[in-house]
């Protein structure tokens, strides 16, 4: 089992604006893979990546309603949402639906 988790993070639909306008981030989390779920990832993102107005991205311990989350290109609602255990090389996409129309 990998000692750390490498992830491909992508922010789009306007969510990238909270991350300095950068859409793709390749990150390595300092967690054991079996102890790391999306909930942990969100905390880590908030502490390490989020550049401004965290309330526009995080609400409570989840993402702000209206931000879609895809795990390996599938709706996180199919994958247990916050409880999804991250696997090495997973790709997680956050799309804001709250911008523009």
């Amino acid at each position, binding site marked *: 089992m990998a000692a750390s988790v490498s992830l491909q993070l992508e922010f789009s639909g306007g969510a990238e604006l909270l991350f300095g306008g950068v859409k793709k981030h390749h990150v390595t989390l300092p967690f054991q893979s079996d102890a790391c779920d999306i909930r942990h990832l969100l905390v880590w993102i908030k502490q390490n990546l989020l550049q401004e107005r965290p309330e526009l991205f995080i609400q409570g311990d989840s993402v702000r309603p209206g931000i879609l989350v895809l795990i390996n*290109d599938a709706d996180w609602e199919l994958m*247990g949402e916050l409880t999804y255990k991250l696997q090495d090389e997973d790709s997680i996409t956050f799309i804001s639906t709250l911008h*523009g129309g």
Partner: protein
Amino acid sequence: MEVATRMRQNRHTLMLLARGCASLSLATEARPESNCGCAELLTGGGGGTWMFWRNLNTMPVCCNSCLEKNAVLKRPKTGHSLCKECFFTAFEEEVHQTIMSGQLFQRGETVGIGASGGKDSTVLAHVLKVLNERHDYGLALLLLSVDEGITGYRDDSLETVKRNQQQYDLPLKIVSYEELYGWTMDDIVKQVGLKNNCTFCGVFRRQALDRGAMILGVDKICTGHNADDIAETVLMNVLRGDIARLRRCTAVATGSEGAIPRCKPLKYAYEKEIVLYAYFKKLDYFSTECVYSPNAYRGHARAFLKDLEALRPSTILDIIHSGEHLSVKEDVRMPVQGNCSRCGYISSQALCKACVLLEGLNRGLPKLGIGKHQKLHHKLLAQEPLTEQERRKLKVLDL
């Protein structure tokens, strides 16, 4: 990588076992979810198990429609899980049904698609183009854009629209505030500040689309309003007590007298599905917040709606159902629609909102169109001068 895959497979098998056992003892009902290869279990299987297996996650969930491929999304409207192809089919077919049941178009019509470069209008343009060919609607489609003159926002999004024009091979017409009104939004904001600028923008845009459509001889305009937008408007109109708008805001098609009819083919499409449709189809859309401050009050309603959706995803359509079934007392006074005596556009007042706003801008009295100053309209029409007190009331407040 390989390890991960094998692990998933193992868990998947475990899962099937778990489901098999559990469904023997637990009560019925077909949940929309199912795992691949256990289609038979689905029909007999079980209600009570879904909470249980959801916790074990990471298992690919099987498409409820084809029962073959892995699902990529859970539909907020029904709770079903669909694979990419079945989702595309269902999404497009639903828009088709909205068009057919609402009799939105007639063969041979020229239809202008209000295109902002954002997700909704991009998906709308794409789907209409597909459906027009697939079902042979016999429509002439074209893109209609409004250039509000907002540097760093609209100029960028118009680039997206221009790309869309090429991608979809549709004619494009751009009308600008500057050519229609003589003012860009940038100029307007310079005069009115960031307080009521959205009022100007909204009112002007509505007319601008109509004027552009008229120039092009368009029979109908369709806009990208989605289910979330409509539900939000219902909530807004309740909160501000606007009974006239409350009654008509859920209509799929509006306006026949004077103005060019408008319709909303995405009326029943969830924002979530529109965004995912654009994402999976890799459609090219623009998503940046307007540089001029977003509307705070509507922001409350939007956040509330999203919270509701998180609790019960069907809420958005439930609200639209509510809106469609409101019945207003007969003795409630409704504004009578007439025409603006200056520009001829439909209006419930002697002067339409756009003309009042414009008059205010041109006279340096920007607050003229904000709030209730109808009494002053006749003065404007008769070109009478305003008193000093009236003028003072209409200037920008120094806050």
